[in-house]
């Protein structure tokens, strides 16, 4: 269908810092014991998109990601991995691989997206409107979970939420305004020219930009070429395209200019004009067309382009793993309400316990739980709504609630873990009590220590 897919794998994000490291870049962070990137790749595979370019920041990270993909997806996907320097941003990443892009349209997917929104629908919307850019919008995660998993105390400083403010036209098909939460201060600035053209703008705060875009390749390349200061697709390129849609500056010279030679050309050109007029008159007009035609009596034709939005249905799951809070939320959702995403089959108790896992006497594993391969649990343990990775050794009378425990973790007797994320190779000695903590890889928590809302990592 003439689409090329670029997956932005990211590098080692600062927002996820105790969890990720050079060895474990963002893309490989396990969600329900599978790297988060696998959700995107499988999602693409499901849509029959098998030629992918994965861009990873940092060479070492790229090596790890490449090695993992080649192991897991050989024979299934045709994946090419490109490494870009760190901190070039999403726009920079695309710039770096821009010479590999050849298809008519480019689909840019963030590697930390976990979703089941039909990808084809986004692409089809893009094609149907012949848009310059189409963004997928999904309903923003309700931050109601935070009672149980009140996020790590670090950035608990009453942020009003990182939502995006999105303006839509009355038909809910076009983006007419976009501002990410960070940029919004007290006032909301809307272009004056937009309002009369559109007539009515609906500003939505309950939608989130899922960082899944379909771009027209020529447009994307031209914008990235000309605006070298653009750093991010979401913060720079998309707002720029949305802003300039009524006075399009892109592709001014890219328009087909028929060379005239003789009268024949002129005739065919006038025919062409008539043809396009017939087509234009017959199609359902959007506000772009009205604006392009200008007010009554004016003859100048203004150039416009379209920025479309695809709004995912509320029954679809869509989340981005871009914060620690999101990490625990996604882990919980994938084994809970959005369990079809995990790809595992659940037992009758609504949980997944690997056959090789060993459970001690009187140990209970509640619903919406996952126990990885080769993990051992002592007697009288209780696990609720948590994910436990592979080859963990868990002592007796341990309580794990609402937490994520990665691989090869040793937990001593009588520990209690609540709302925390424990990375690989961590050792928890006896009677440690963790609440809302993040423990970095290889850390050793001393016996009897009690932590609440802390970040524990090796210095």
């Amino acid at each position, binding site marked *: *269908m003439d*689409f090329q897919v670029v997956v932005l794998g990211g590098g080692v994000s600062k927002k996820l810092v105790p969890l990720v490291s050079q060895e474990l870049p963002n893309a490989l962070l396990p969600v329900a014991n599978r790297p988060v990137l696998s959700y995107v790749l499988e999602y693409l595979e499901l*849509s*029959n*998109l*098998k030629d992918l*370019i994965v*861009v990873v920041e940092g*060479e070492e990270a*790229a090596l790890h990601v*490449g*090695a993992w993909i*080649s*192991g897991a997806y*050989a*024979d*299934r*996907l*045709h*994946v*090419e*991995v*490109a*490494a*870009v*320097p760190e901190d*070039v941003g999403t726009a*920079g990443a695309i*710039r*770096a*691989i*821009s*010479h*590999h892009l050849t298809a*008519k349209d480019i689909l840019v997917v963030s590697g930390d997206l976990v979703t089941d929104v*039909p*990808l*084809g*629908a986004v*692409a*089809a*919307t893009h*094609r*149907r*409107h*012949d848009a310059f850019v189409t963004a997928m919008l999904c309903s923003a995660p309700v931050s109601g979970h935070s009672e149980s998993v009140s996020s790590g105390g670090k950035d608990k400083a009453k942020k009003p939420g990182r939502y995006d403010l999105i303006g839509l036209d009355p038909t809910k098909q076009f983006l007419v305004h976009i501002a990410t939460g960070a940029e919004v201060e007290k006032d909301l600035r809307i272009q004056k020219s937009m309002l009369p053209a559109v007539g009515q703008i609906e500003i939505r705060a309950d939608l989130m930009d899922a960082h899944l875009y379909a771009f027209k390749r020529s447009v994307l390349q031209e914008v990235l070429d000309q605006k*070298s200061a653009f750093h991010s697709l979401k913060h720079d390129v998309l707002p720029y395209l949305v802003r300039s849609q009524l006075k399009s500056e892109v592709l001014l010279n890219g328009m087909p200019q028929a060379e005239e030679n003789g009268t024949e050309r002129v005739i065919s050109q006038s*025919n062409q004009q*008539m*043809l396009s007029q*017939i*087509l234009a*008159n*017959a*199609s*359902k*007009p959007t506000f772009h067309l009205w604006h392009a*035609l200008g007010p*009554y*009596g004016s003859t100048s034709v203004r150039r416009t382009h379209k920025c479309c939005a695809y709004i995912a249905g509320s029954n679809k799951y869509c989340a981005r793993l871009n914060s620690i809070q999101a990490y625990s939320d996604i882990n919980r959702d994938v084994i809970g309400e959005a369990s079809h995403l995990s790809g595992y089959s659940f037992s009758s108790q609504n949980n997944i316990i690997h056959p090789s896992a060993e459970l001690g006497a009187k140990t209970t594993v509640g619903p919406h739980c996952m126990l990885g391969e080769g993990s051992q649990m002592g007697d009288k343990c209780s696990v609720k709504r948590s994910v436990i990775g592979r080859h963990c050794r868990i002592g007796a009378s341990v309580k794990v609630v609402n937490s994520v425990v990665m691989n090869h973790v040793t937990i001593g007797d009588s520990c209690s873990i609540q709302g925390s994320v424990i990375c690989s190779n961590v050792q928890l000695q006896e009677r440690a009590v963790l609440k809302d903590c993040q423990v970095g890889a290889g850390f050793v928590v001393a016996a009897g220590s009690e932590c609440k809302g802390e970040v524990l990592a090796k210095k």
Partner: protein
Amino acid sequence: MDARRAPRAVIDPKVRRVGFFAPPEPDPTISFEVSPSANSLSPVMIPPPRHSSEIVGLHARLAADSPSGEESVAAGSYSSSSEFFPAPVSPAPSSRIVAGDFFDGAASSPSRRGGGGKVASSFPRGGFDLTAVKASSVPASELTTVSVVNAASLAIREREKVGKGGGSAVEVKDQALNTKQKKEKTSKAERRALQEAQRAAKAAAIAEGNKASGTLASVNVKPAKAAKPPQKVDNVSVAATEKKGGDRPPEKDRKKDVPQPRMQYDDKSRVEKAKRRAVVKQTEARNRVELFRHLPQYEHGSQLPDLEAKFFQLDSVHPAVYKVGLQYLSGDISGGNARCIAMLQAFQEAIKDYRIPSEKTLVRDLTAKISSYVSFLIECRPLSISMGNAIRFLKSRIAKLPLTLSESESKTSLQSDIERFINEKIILANKVIVKHAVTKVRDGDVLLTYGSSSAVEMILLHAHELGKQFRVVVVDSRPKLSGKLSLRRLVEKGLSCTYTHINAVSYIMNEVTRVFLGASSVLSNGTVYSGVGTACVAMVAHAFHVPVLVCCEAYKFHERVQQDSICSNELGDPDVIATVRSREDGNHLEAWANTENLQLLNLIYDATPSDYVSMIITDYGMVPPTSVPVIVREYSREQVWI
């Protein structure tokens, strides 16, 4: 003239006098408003074919070619048939290749896979070293292939599976191939019988061989099962090619004589069959209107998202065609000319990207491809008659491609054919229509038009450009309100307009001097098939003795005869007539789908009997409706569309 029209006012079926007959004495007191003598152009004006030299040339070429052409066709079909049914020698090597492949694959596939993985994982190093070479602000990075889809190994594995079950699949294949040679002459039933017998014999032989080793039943079943797939595949493909190859010409002839009946959507078994083929999900519409059950029911709400979701799965449909289909489905493109142009341009694109698959001929494969595109488009929205004509034209062009042309030559020739069709049949035709029709616009006229027609709009704009003084009444109707768009463009150009809805047409008709209407098609009994409401306007105009001029390009003419708007029509979205967008309190029909005794009918087209049409303005001139069959006969029969 009016006197002549009077007896025709009765619409009941009657014998119409077509051709030459003595006209009743003309009434000298009443002069017909659109008097032909008043203008330079006579109403009946069928000029000699404009491209006479070209057509003559075509005929001449045909005539000259005909003996040799027939020969070459025969030769072509013969050679292709020999391609499909390989000569007796070929099967043996092919089966040997299969066997070799099979053993090879079994041995090498695991190791190859392992090797592939290793190579891939060692790649990145090399790739990254190269990144530093480019000295730009952001160094261009190289791509590293880390995983590859190994199609060959997959295929091998599949074959392996077959092999494992039967143990002698190769042998079976051999037999299948043998039968294939014989199939050339035998009929379908005979072939089947032969195959059945062979299969039975085979199963028996295997069973006998294995009798000693295990239980008879289980062994017996397994090989039979395993043996089936290859045979079945062969069978199907052979049958398909046979059908395409051998039976084609006579079948085609038959088809030409008797037009295939259109799909009747109240015929359950046929609908079921069509559903299974369908790409776009066809859901059962509730609350069907009894009289229109035979038409494809509209169920827009579920179709569009479903089709969109399948975007990447539908590889068989060209992206351009897909886009047009989506635009039809969502209503982004409407209007006969625009839909036809959009479709043809999509086909042009598809032909540009078309590659002949190996062992196939362009003529057959491309025709099949276009047919599949067309059926996809039909699923999105039923075709208009004009589109049907355009498709027929394209298919005939494909069929008539000389076999000597190379792939690229035939592609360019088809593309230019499409281009020419668009230019001559649509664009030029529109221009000619405008030229003719403008002569009917006089100063002080009040012209009424209904809805939005590209041709009528161009006429009005052109007349305005010529400086004629006239007023326009744009009559519109819910739910599309397409007249508004037309109105806007007219007002922009400075025409003085009146806008009203069809409810008021009987009032406004008093002041109107001429009615210009667009048409989706003109049928060969002169019936004008056009957007719903046209008939109403034409009848009111007739009652007020206002001449009705229908503007329609000749490529939209069709030889079909239709008396009513029931047997062939299109149903639109019933929801749009149930809901009134501008009024909050007007939506009393919100839950209409749940009430069993309510059916909504949103018809798209209606048929205007020729009695109400004074004149049809087409690219061959201005003709009375009775002359439509002449044009259809003279210009479309011989495929002189171009």
